[in-house]
């Protein structure tokens, strides 16, 4: 009996190794995203859910791996100045495709497809969501079937914008040739079932609901993917997604579980799966309004640089507000292992991380002393005031359980330093929307302080830091569009930005990046970072090969996933 079971075990082990090597031998894998994909063409939708779901089907030339380093996908190698792939003046980059690449319909992948993808996105009528990646591109040349030369108008210290990362995968020219410009949205069949080079092909796409996929027979590695089919379900909420992987075991992988740490820990106790965390550059921060949001001002002056803020323009107030915050506690309550304390706007990658520590310890007494010294005296109601200006703050954010807990805590701490706070939470689709007619958008900033999280794509923060340039602030003349949310303006900062965009040497870029970061955070407290947020996802214990990647699509290595038997 024992011998027999040994044999059975041995046979099972043999089958397991065999299946490990065979395409489509592990059956079905099911993935759940609580935001449902609505389209499989990332150029027509900037949404993370759409970029990540389509990353299983269409691929870029290169991706970032879990450490933020570039790895070639369709390209043979990563072009650099050292290997001659990037020109010395940083004005062009030359990519070479792997040989023998095939689309899932069996035709060959050529440089013409790559060139077409660039033209598709840069078409002025297309409304391409990834246009910024092609910023400064003047020409895409194809000297031969496998070579692509991308030229830029000015020297580009970071030339890895186009065709790198999940945002800009390669489309098939044959399939999308009739979908250029204004016709792009009408190509429903194409947008719902792009022909790609990735490990899977779409068999059925129900928008905002479910995608069914099967293994791509023409995938470049003949032994991959291990799974024959994929069910990609979307919709619902993070709790239900986490439950379906960790507690009921109905799904194998759940994306981005934004849940209280103890909720996740309790779900893990069921033993069906594990939660994994990874960190990108996402930072939850308080933004200080440098301009006056008072409702008594007229629409052309309110929250614009014409009217400086009555008390937040005093750096001592901003600094005291930051000192009063207990960041480790915020992390513990809101994020657990999916968060870390930070004092930086750019907490990662290592090269650009300032790693400041000045804000990590709460100092209520110090904050009180600082305000006292700066002339803000407590009134009879316990609220500080100077020259008739009371420290009374309207603090807004989007609706989200963790953010409301943070609001309650921070209000309490500010109370202790004599600052009165009115809280407001807004519907995310209004808050993050750009309707110039709405008073509640984060750009309009009709509040003194607001809280949200932001990040950048890839590993280079230049564009991210450039947001805080003078004149880039939302204002009535620009229909309240603009990324300089705080209305920060410092000529020295702008000069340093210009220096950054002219510097190619990575080490020097890192130094300048850190300087810029410090100007916004440590030196001026314009931005008060709170938590360096990671991402928590969960996978079933029987799912192998998962490597959580926060620099690119989470499903970047889905070809390597397999079933543990």
């Amino acid at each position: 009996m024992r011998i027999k079971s040994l044999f059975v075990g041995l046979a099972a082990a043999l089958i397991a190794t065999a299946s490990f090597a065979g395409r489509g031998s592990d059956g079905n894998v099911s993935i759940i995203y609580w935001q449902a994909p609505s389209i499989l063409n990332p150029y027509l939708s900037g949404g993370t859910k759409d970029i990540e779901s389509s990353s299983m089907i269409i691929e870029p030339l290169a991706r970032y791996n879990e450490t933020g380093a570039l790895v070639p996908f369709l390209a043979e190698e990563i072009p650099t100045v050292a290997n001659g792939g990037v020109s010395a003046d940083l004005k062009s980059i030359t990519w070479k495709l792997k040989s023998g690449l095939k689309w899932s319909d069996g035709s060959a992948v050529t440089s013409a497809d790559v060139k077409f993808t660039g033209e598709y996105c840069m078409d002025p009528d297309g409304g391409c969501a990834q246009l910024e990646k092609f910023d400064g591109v003047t020409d895409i040349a194809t000297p031969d079937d496998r070579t692509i030369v991308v030229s830029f108008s000015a020297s580009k210290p970071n030339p890895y914008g186009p065709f790198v990362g999940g945002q800009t995968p390669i489309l098939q020219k044959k399939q999308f040739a009739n979908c250029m410009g204004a016709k792009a949205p009408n190509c429903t069949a194409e947008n719902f079932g792009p022909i790609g080079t990735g490990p899977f092909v779409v068999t059925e796409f129900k928008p905002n609901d479910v995608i069914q996929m099967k293994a791509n027979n023409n995938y470049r590695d003949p032994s991959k993917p291990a799974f024959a089919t994929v069910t990609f379900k979307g919709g619902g909420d993070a709790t239900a997604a986490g439950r379906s992987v960790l507690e009921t075991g109905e799904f194998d992988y759940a994306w981005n579980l934004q849940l209280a740490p103890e909720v996740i820990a309790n779900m893990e106790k069921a033993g069906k799966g594990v939660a994994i965390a990874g960190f990108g550059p996402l930072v939850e921060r308080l933004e200080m309004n440098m301009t006056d949001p008072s409702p008594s001002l007229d629409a052309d002056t309110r929250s614009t640089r014409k009217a400086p803020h009555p008390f937040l323009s005093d750096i001592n107030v901003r600094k005291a507000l930051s000192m009063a915050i207990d960041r480790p506690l915020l992390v513990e309550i809101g994020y657990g292992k999916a968060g870390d304390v930070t004092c930086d706007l750019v907490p990662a990658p290592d090269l650009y991380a300032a790693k400041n520590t000045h804000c990590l310890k709460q100092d209520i007494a110090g904050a009180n002393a600082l305000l006292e010294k700066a002339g803000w005296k407590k009134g009879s109601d316990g609220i500080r005031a100077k020259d008739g200006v009371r420290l009374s703050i309207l603090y807004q954010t989007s609706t989200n359980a963790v953010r409301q807990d943070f609001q309650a805590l921070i209000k309490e701490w500010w109370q202790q330093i004599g600052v009165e706070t009115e809280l407001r939470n807004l519907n995310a689709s209004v808050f993050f929307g750009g309707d110039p007619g709405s008073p509640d958008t984060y750009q309009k900033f009709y509040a003194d302080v607001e809280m949200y999280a932001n990040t950048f794509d890839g590993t280079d923060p230049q564009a991210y830091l450039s947001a805080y340039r003078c004149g880039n602030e939302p204002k009535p003349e620009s229909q309240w569009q603009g990324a300089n949310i705080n209305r920060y303006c410092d000529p020295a900062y702008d000069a340093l930005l210009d220096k950054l965009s002219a510097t190619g040497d990575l080490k020097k870029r890192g130094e300048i990046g850190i300087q810029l970061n410090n100007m916004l955070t440590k030196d001026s407290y314009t931005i008060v970072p709170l938590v360096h947020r990671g991402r928590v996802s969960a996978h079933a214990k029987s799912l192998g090969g998962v490597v959580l990647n926060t620099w690119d699509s989470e499903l970047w290595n889905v070809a390597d996933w397999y079933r543990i038997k």
Partner: protein
Amino acid sequence: MITFIIRRLLIAIPTLVIISLVVFLLLNLAPNDPMAQVPLTVPPEVKQKMREALGLGQPIHIQFFKWLVQFFWIEPQVLIDYLFNTTFSEGKQRIISWQTRSPVMDIVVQRLPQTLWVVGMSYVVGILIALPIGLYSAYKQYSIFDNVGTFVSMVGYSVPPFFSGVFVIVIFSVQLGWLPSIYDTTHTVVDWETFKFQIKQMVMPVMVLALQTTAQINRFMRSASLDNLNQDYVRTARAKGLTEWTIITVHVLRNSMIPVVTVIAINVPYIFGGALITEQVFKVNGIGHQLIGAIYANDLPTVQTITFMFAFLIVSFNLLADIIYGLLDPRIRYD
């Protein structure tokens, strides 16, 4: 009666056009933005270009007119093409969703089956449970049966589905492992086994939804029956020697149905739009789910189209209810 119906049908047309106009203006006034779900990493200039590509820059009356033409002229052609294999609609611009860039009606058709199966079924179940319970509760007022029925239905009504849904999932999916917590919309019924699975995955959403319906209809049924049980005609019928069964089922039931028919008629259209929380909890992804998703993403063409279909159902069912009043109580006249 016939002239009444014809008149009402004629009035329905301007009513529906006015409703669609009001909804359109409302949606355009609302401070939403279709770019709200695009990540903050996409710069504002690019978002502005994306908005223009959606046709957002056009004047409102042109947008509205375009929608009218697409809904009343092009979409019916698509339907005719589909039914008779013709090519009337070829190359014509259909109503395109901003979220998915695909025809709105295609998604509606895709979601119809689970909407009818789950939400429609729960409604039927709810009504079938509520009517007899309400009637019997009234007949035996203040009996144990009545008290228990009142208690259960009020608790059922006052506990919101976002709680009751999660509660049954925790019990039946997590603790007991009997039922799936996520509705599989790709499941097709081909044999006994798949049918059993379909029933299994429908049990929880149907029950949670039915609880709400049952509670509401049960309350109205009970109170209307109570009113009627004390009427003179019941006494007369008893004096005539009719059996209790006949009195209750023929006379009392019929006369108590007016408020109940009203509630049912008002709620039937909500099958297509009202079950959103339950659909969300169980991921049934029906039309209600499509509507709420479109509202969040400010996908105006989808919201406008589904809302209009919703309005159409409301107007039709309210007309139907008015006709049924006349059948239930011949004294009601509209002319």
